């Protein structure tokens, strides 16, 4: 769908405060792209990663590959003698190292099982380095990421093969983290932004501990990928909301509450709880727009312009400064002026009001586009469903994502199920059930009343318990206690 102002332009406007805003091609950033981007910013790029990428693409001509970088090709005559054998090898390596099919002829992100595989691919739309910037602000250390990617001493065949392939690819040249001094997750952002960022960082960090060796490391990398991507989606959805109401929130659900259907996704569309989850999704989109508008209003107000600017051009000049600060091309600002003129948005005077900012935001980020964007991104890790069709999107939790939640939220000794419900709510804003908060149903506007909501939440909670037990992520004891635990 086309926006009234190109999405890219509105993105530039909101970018300084909300760098996790989606771009025009919102369906492009895939989880492995974001993981790759995060590692590229934290550790650096494999200097021969482009050659490795071409190795995985049979369609790339053999001549495009610098075979001197792959000593194993000289160890066996078969690779030189038989083109079909060589192509079969490349096809098989792609099955192993590009399971998400995100390696393309000229760019791409293989599964980063070895640091030499990390590419400079920007298909993540900048989200990967942003996630790194965010978690680095809250105590993450490069060594933690280094361990999970570089500990290739395992004897599992995937790690061994990766080490052989990447034997001549060293890591260097970190990907630049975009400047975002005013972003919601920095110390110049709102207090709620710090709460959200710190929570997401702890979640991502939680997937990396305890350190894993051997094939367990591969699973840990998958969890890191999912956790990083979920954090991206939550940053897209909740990041702007941190600007809305900064009144000393202590937990993420005070910033935004996302009601998640805990049964088998995507759920019966006529089920009362699924309907509540749909409303929650819609509410999140509205809140996202309002947050962007408010942040833009405040940011434009705070922009500094030369004292010589006439009074009736101050607002426009500030808007232009905001646009440029967000990475916009100064020569293209005229498109925004033109739109404002045609749409009757008053940017004369000294100040841009909330309504004007809101109209500017929705001109690029209308509800339909944001819904499609969040749906597309969330669906990639099983956080939003259904995958396709006309049915309204809602928050769900596919089993691999559920496992990542357990991995990231639970301590290694496990935790009672009720505490898990509470932690998902407080740390990530995900509402699965009542937990220990009996009043939560009354605070949420997604059902007819507190009593109805409480009943729905309790049943949803039971569904989650059942799925956790069935997936081996929880143990239900005969006395009714249930323990959520990842490692046994």
């Amino acid at each position, binding site marked *: 769908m086309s926006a009234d102002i190109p999405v890219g332009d509105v993105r530039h406007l909101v970018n300084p405060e909300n760098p996790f805003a989606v771009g025009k091609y919102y369906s492009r950033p*895939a*989880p*492995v792209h974001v*993981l790759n981007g995060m590692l590229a910013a934290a550790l650096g790029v494999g200097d021969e990663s482009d050659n490795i990428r071409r190795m995985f693409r049979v369609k790339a001509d053999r001549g495009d590959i610098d075979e001197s970088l792959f*000593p*194993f090709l000289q*160890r*066996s005559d*078969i690779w030189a003698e038989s083109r079909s*054998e060589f192509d*079969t*090898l490349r096809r*098989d390596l*792609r*099955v*192993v190292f590009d*399971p*998400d*099919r995100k390696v393309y002829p000229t760019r791409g992100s293989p*599964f980063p*099982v070895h640091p030499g595989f990390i590419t400079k691919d920007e298909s993540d739309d900048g989200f990967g380095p942003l996630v790194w910037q965010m978690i680095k602000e809250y105590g993450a250390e490069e060594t933690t990421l280094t361990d999970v990617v570089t500990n290739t001493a395992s*004897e*599992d*065949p*995937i790690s*061994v*093969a990766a080490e*052989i*392939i990447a034997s001549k690819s060293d890591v260097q040249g970190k990907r630049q983290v975009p400047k975002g001094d005013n972003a919601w997750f920095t110390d110049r952002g709102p207090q709620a932004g710090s709460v959200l960022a710190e929570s997401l960082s702890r979640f991502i960090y939680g997937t990396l501990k305890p350190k894993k060796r*051997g*094939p*367990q490391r*591969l*699973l840990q990398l*998958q969890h890191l990928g*999912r956790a990083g991507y979920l954090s991206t989606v939550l940053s897209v959805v909740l990041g702007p909301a941190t600007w809305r109401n900064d009144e000393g929130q202590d937990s993420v659900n005070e910033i935004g509450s996302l009601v998640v259907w805990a049964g*088998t*996704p995507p759920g019966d569309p006529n089920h009362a709880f699924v309907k509540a989850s749909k409303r929650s999704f819609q509410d999140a989109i509205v809140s996202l727009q309002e947050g962007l508008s408010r942040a833009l209003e405040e940011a434009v107000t705070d922009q500094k312009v030369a004292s010589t600017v006439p009074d009736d051009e101050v607002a426009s000049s500030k808007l232009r400064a905001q646009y440029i600060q967000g990475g916009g091309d100064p020569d293209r600002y005229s498109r925004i002026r033109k739109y404002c003129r045609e749409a009757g948005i008053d940017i004369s005077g000294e100040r841009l009001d909330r309504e004007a900012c809101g109209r500017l935001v929705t001109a690029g980020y209308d509800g339909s586009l944001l819904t499609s964007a969040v749906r597309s991104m969330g*669906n*990639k*890790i*099983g956080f939003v469903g259904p*995958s396709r069709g006309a049915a309204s999107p809602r928050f769900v939790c*596919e*089993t*691999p994502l559920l*496992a990542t939640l357990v991995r990231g939220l639970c301590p290694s000794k496990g935790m*009672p199920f009720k505490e898990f419900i509470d932690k998902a709510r407080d740390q990530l804003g995900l509402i699965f059930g009542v937990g220990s908060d009996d009043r939560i149903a009354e605070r949420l506007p997604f059902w007819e009343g507190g009593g109805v909501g409480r009943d729905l939440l309790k049943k949803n909670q039971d569904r989650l318990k059942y*799925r956790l037990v*069935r*997936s*081996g992520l929880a*143990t239900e*004891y*005969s*006395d*009714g*206690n249930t*323990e959520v635990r990842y490692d*046994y």
Partner: protein
Amino acid sequence: MIDEMRKFLASRKVTEAFSAELRETITVPTGLESAVEAALGKKENVVIAGDAGSGKTHLLGNLVEKFRGDGFEVVEWEETINSESTSDTIRIIEDATEVLDLLDGDVLETSGEAGPVAVAINEGPLIQLAKDYPGSGWERALDMLRSMQRGVEPERQSGLPVVFNAAGYDPVAGDAVASILAIDEIHQVVEESQCGCDPAICPRRQSWRLLKKKAVRKRVNEVVDLANLHGQSVLFREIWNFVADLVLGGRCDESPGTSAWFWRVFNGDSELSRRIREAADPKYVVYPGAEAHLWYGDLTTDRINLVSELSHSDIDPPAGPIPYDEPSQYEWLKSELFFIVEADSMVEVLSEEVDVDLRNAVEGQRTEKVVNAINRYMTYGTSRNGSDAHELQLWTDLGIQKRLERVRGQVSLGRARTSSFKLRRSVAVGNHPDRSVELPGPRNYLVHQGGETSFLLTARALDLIKGGRSYRTSDRPHTDMEWFMTRFFIDVADALPGIGELQVLNLDFDRMEGERRRYSISRELNSIAPASD
């Protein structure tokens, strides 16, 4: 005693309310008692975990009586806190929840001077004590309990308590239901039923005659075993509630009489009855060649073979053909037949409803068959049946993104010999000094001997494995099970030495074919080459 039994059946079945006489009457042999007795006799500390419905308090109470009768001093543990006890004193904690505040990390520490401790404790308080006292006997008891619940044999170590998982014990495997139904006092309660019917036509009393036959009682026990299909334990309290409903539930004046025990097995008000009905419904059982005879009330036909203890005079045929507008009468009749028709096993009777092939393999400990089935499942049925029975291939893929289209292939983390796996049931006792003591639980696991990892083989999982792996991403039950399986494979791979081989499976779903390629890989030689066959 009959009145007391009737009151007991109608009650909440709390063990503290029993008289000693009633306790003795309702006690059925399980093997748990002798195992606990043996452990305490060897001065080992004993932890009995599980809730009251699992029979742990009842078990401990019986033992107290026995040990006192044998001349031992048995005292409540809290009496010994500030006083001395000798090594011949058995200290008991009948319910740890009631004295939780008095318990510390040293309760289970072995001391030559003090006698053994026997404690009954719910799992929740045990988890709490383990957290509060890391490194203590509580924590080690909890670790053992967790291993037992996963079918993994806990490490034996002297100085650690003997742990009984009362909730994990399978009373049905020990024929507990059949034993309970043989209790004379229960038969007398039925005979003296207060329903007000003429005993000659009372459906409750007339149907109960069948339960005087051992073969029929055994059949009931087998039917209750169906409730284990999903790997959920059947507790003693559930069994007693089930029996109580058979004895007291339903109405004689309905048509057909819902008080008939065989009707209530599947349609009663107890939780166990509900679970049995989920697993098997007698109305779907087919009796080839006999259905028409049944409908017209001809139970003497030679197309119906009764179990050997029964003759046709033992059963009440309906008076003439069943009216077409009363199909429930037909279902009622089929319920009765369910228990009296000749068959090698209940599973044979239910062969239309339950997939028996893999289930029999699990029961028969045929590991190769199970491994072969998992291999076929993980390769989407593209491997030849029977070709992969000798080793389990640990297929995986490294995808992060949710699958929205068919996979192109997968990679193996290695292969583990079938001989390194065992089919085990969950166990109800851990660290017993007598290695021959084995009390099986209701769950079946595929256990890898090299590490402490296991894969739960519920009936549902076996159905999914047998039914084949779906490449449709919308088939969620597969997703949940496959996550469990992935974890299992990773843990198995973790325990394997490197094999120097990379195996890849390319899949063509249009032709339902899979092409496997193996490569020799060597880090030391920095080489990848096609593997020689």
